[in-house]
């Protein structure tokens, strides 16, 4: 589902201030359109992960930054690996 900023706030339970900080940190990168930001289900799941890191595991902001960066690289790697496996290479 694609949602606007207000819908995303309702769906994720975030405060506006928190969201703005996360956007500033580029922890969340919603699609920019002519009518404003557009958030996807992946953004909601990513926001939930950040919340769990912060409240569940008591990771601080620097830690979240590092973890997200590593997770993103890990998924990049997994993707590249998956493509190698999927016989993209003939």
């Amino acid at each position, binding site marked *: 589902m694609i949602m606007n900023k207000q819908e995303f706030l309702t769906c994720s339970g975030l405060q506006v201030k928190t969201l703005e900080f996360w956007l500033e940190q580029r922890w969340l*990168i919603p699609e920019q359109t002519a009518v404003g930001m557009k958030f996807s289900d*992946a953004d909601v799941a*990513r926001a939930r*992960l950040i919340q769990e890191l912060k409240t569940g*595991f008591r990771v601080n902001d620097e830690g979240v930054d590092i973890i997200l960066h590593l*997770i993103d690289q890990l998924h990049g790697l997994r993707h*590249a690996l998956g493509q190698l496996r999927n016989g993209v*290479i003939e």
Partner: protein
Amino acid sequence: MRNPYEVLDVAPTASSAEIQTAYRKLAKKLHPDLNPGDKSAEEKFKEVAGAYDLLSDAEKRKRFDNGEIDATGAERPQQNFYRDFASSDQAHPYADASGFADFMDGDDAFAELIRRGQRARANRRGQDLHYRLPIDFLESIAGANKRLTLPEGGTLDVKIPPGLVDGQILRLKGKGGPGTGKGGPGDALIEVEVLPDRRFTREGDDITLELPISLSEAVLGGRITVPTPTGLVTMSVPKGSNTGTTLRLKGKGAPRRGGSRGDQFVKLNVVLPKPPDPELEAFVSSWAKGKEFNPRKD
């Protein structure tokens, strides 16, 4: 479902602080988003989270200790983890190739393989685009050809099949977003909204029309013309018809799969002449039997 104390590896006498510490320690290692490749992590994480849900709630823990609820009492609802999205094949803004960028620079066979993999990623099928198209009720029954003006410019010709229902989605193959490289275009998915009609309503394959008739047609009967989705037809109203009397026109409803059609029901509504007719008034006031009849009796 295992015993929650065993799951968290704590003694049944553990304090709530000990339980919290044990949970954090396990959850950190088992969180599915921190283990994107481990399918069992999600199950284990859910088990740990479930156990913690139960034992972290003093009330629930007491009831579990007393045997009032079992270990499943704290089952968590289905959750979509971030890894489910990040590992899909769709392009997303968080993808980061810096973890292996150095591998691609080399002259060796492995670097060539990865480079080809990256290029193949460019051969992606276009996105499916979603649209909404409102149509009239009669168009939904009889079918129509519509032209959809796209928000991003251009138009799309849509053939509405007869008998379509509200909310149905039409797929136009290859009319979606353009693909990249050798990936073909996506599809256009058009959700059709059937606008409500002033006169007709639909239930399943049958449609109902409320039709006004005059007092003399109601009392004496007669032949009247009736609109249907496929044009006007003639129908006879039997003598003594009343408001609410429903007549059936066989096979004038919505088309079904296989060629047959539902029926059209015509619900009559008797309407007195306007403006009030003095002759009718005079007749009714001198009409003894009419005054005797009380439709609210029994």
